[in-house]
């Protein structure tokens, strides 16, 4: 019985395609990481192990500068986006059906549908106009753009979490003399926490990662880590860039792993 069932693993070429896919996915990254430890400057010839490029990266004031800006921006934008996404999720799940509900769902998820380059150019024109009018050239533009961009990524896990919550829990709280605010404070909010954390982390990673939006919105001296790296690559590529990229990769891996651990325990 089990032998005759269709199985994709028995199709000709399955193994080859699988191996090629993984090679394509991971080999370039492995090479990048390996050469970040190269003692020489070459990206293709191994000259022995060394941490000198990491040392160079740590001592590079500009790298430190853009890294801190990236982190600050990601934390700020993800925090604001998570707060707004939480309210949006409550407003679209904890209410009766209202006209335009699907429409609002689509509108909130704009960044998932509109090509990033289009958003980038639109923001460029829009922000330039405001800069001319107000003369303000601070970080506000980047914060606003990143926040808007992060909202759907924060919204989706929070909404998913809310949808798994039994409505009877809030009814039970009301039955046990809790006011609507108390029911939210003691029941709904604590149970939303895993969704909120997951939303925050997704937003954080997305903000940390985005190049296009930042590139179009930033003013002079507002480079983030990705846009700085892009700028450097236009000149010479030294393994210092490999070291920075490896550290960046490590940070992303940590955040994404935390995200998975948190969402995995959400059934409890």
């Amino acid at each position, binding site marked *: 019985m089990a032998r005759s069932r269709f199985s994709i693993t028995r199709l000709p070429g399955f193994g080859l395609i699988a191996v090629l896919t993984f090679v394509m996915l991971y080999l370039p990254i492995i090479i990048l990481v390996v050469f970040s430890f190269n003692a020489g400057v070459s990206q293709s010839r191994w000259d022995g192990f060394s941490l000198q490029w990491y040392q160079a990266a740590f001592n590079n004031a500009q790298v430190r500068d853009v890294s801190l800006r990236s982190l600050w921006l990601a934390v700020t934008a993800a925090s604001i986006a998570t707060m707004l996404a939480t309210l949006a999720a409550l407003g679209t799940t904890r209410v009766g059906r209202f006209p335009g509900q699907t429409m609002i769902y689509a509108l909130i998820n704009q960044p998932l549908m509109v090509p990033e380059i289009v958003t980038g150019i639109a923001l460029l024109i829009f922000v330039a106009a405001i800069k001319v009018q107000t003369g303000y050239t601070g970080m506000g533009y980047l914060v606003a753009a990143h926040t808007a961009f992060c909202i759907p990524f924060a919204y989706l896990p929070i909404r998913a979490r809310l949808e798994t919550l*039994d409505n*009877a829990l809030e009814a*039970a709280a009301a*039955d046990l*003399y809790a006011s609507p605010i108390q029911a939210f404070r003691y029941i709904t909010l604590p149970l939303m926490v895993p969704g909120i954390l997951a939303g925050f982390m997704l937003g954080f990673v997305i903000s940390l990662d985005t190049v296009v939006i930042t590139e179009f919105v930033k003013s002079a001296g507002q480079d983030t880590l990705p846009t700085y790296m892009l700028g450097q690559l236009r000149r010479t590529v030294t393994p210092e860039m490999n070291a920075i990229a490896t550290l960046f990769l490590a940070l992303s891996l940590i955040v994404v792993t935390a995200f998975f651990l948190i969402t995995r325990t959400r059934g409890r």
Partner: protein
Amino acid sequence: MSHEIDITGLSKSFGQGAAAFQALKEIDLTITSGEFFTLLGPSGCGKTTLLRIIAGFELPSTGTVRINGRDVTSLGPSKRPVNTVFQSYALFPHMSLSENIGFGLKMLGKPKAEIRATVDEMLQLVRLEAMADRRPSEISGGQQQRVALARALAPRPRVLLLDEPLSALDLKLRKEMQSELKRLQSETGITFVFVTHDQEEALTMSDRIAVMSAGQILQLGAPQEIYNTPVNRFVADFIGDTNFLKLRVKAVDAGMAVLELPGGKAAQASLPDGMRPATGALVTAVIRPEQAEATGADEGDLHATVESATFFGTDTHLHLTLADAQGFVLRRQNRPGQPVPAPQSRLGLALAPGALRVLED
């Protein structure tokens, strides 16, 4: 006995205009303090809707709800001295059992020491002292059910509403919880309003039962009363097993009718209040399967042919055909050495005096 809940002229419609559906129709109901009151009826008859209106989760379309004399019709659930045991239990998954049980008292603003004392008392009442610090996901279904009960009892409500609280449990646990519920009810003296669609559960546990169908209460009374004197065909059919016989009236006298039985003999049957069928009319008479006795083939009131026999352990159900081809089920208690009648064998039936009753259709 004082009135705990007074429901008058209560109706509930869902939807608007032509699509409107009337889930409850003009219900009048009084529930007495300290009684174990059961709402019994088939799926969709409006039991949950009635319970939700008493709890305050749903507003009635018309009518009033009074609790202990106070009109609470427009009050929300948090303002009524009523607690609910939900069918899904709805335990708070992020809180320990103690915190779950203490939640109502905390919301009422009771001092910490008092909350702790009551929680301990409740844990003891439902015999879960050893598990106070566990989460709901770390205990069994029957234990969760007891926590739901303790949580609803802790604020000492005047009334406890229970919506099919035992339906998720297996048979053995169900029996255990039935007696546990009865014990809790008599120990606390709290009025229980219990919803079930299981007639046996209703009969064994209740002080009084309201049998509902299609948004109406058809009969209200003690279990014996409902079982022995069902007011109509629906109640007779829904509660226990019943034989329905179409019989001709030979004579009528003072609440009693003499009916002609298949095979020619006659028997007395009680008539419902206000019913006076004409002589010669066909009426529906009912008799419970255990209220007749098998006799020799030529004795008794009725003559029957055995079609089949089903063994149930404590008793055997004999499926019979009467002289005029109407079916009849006889429940016979099993005794050691008693032979099971063979199919197509003939026997007589003696009806217990007073067992035959005429019903309005």
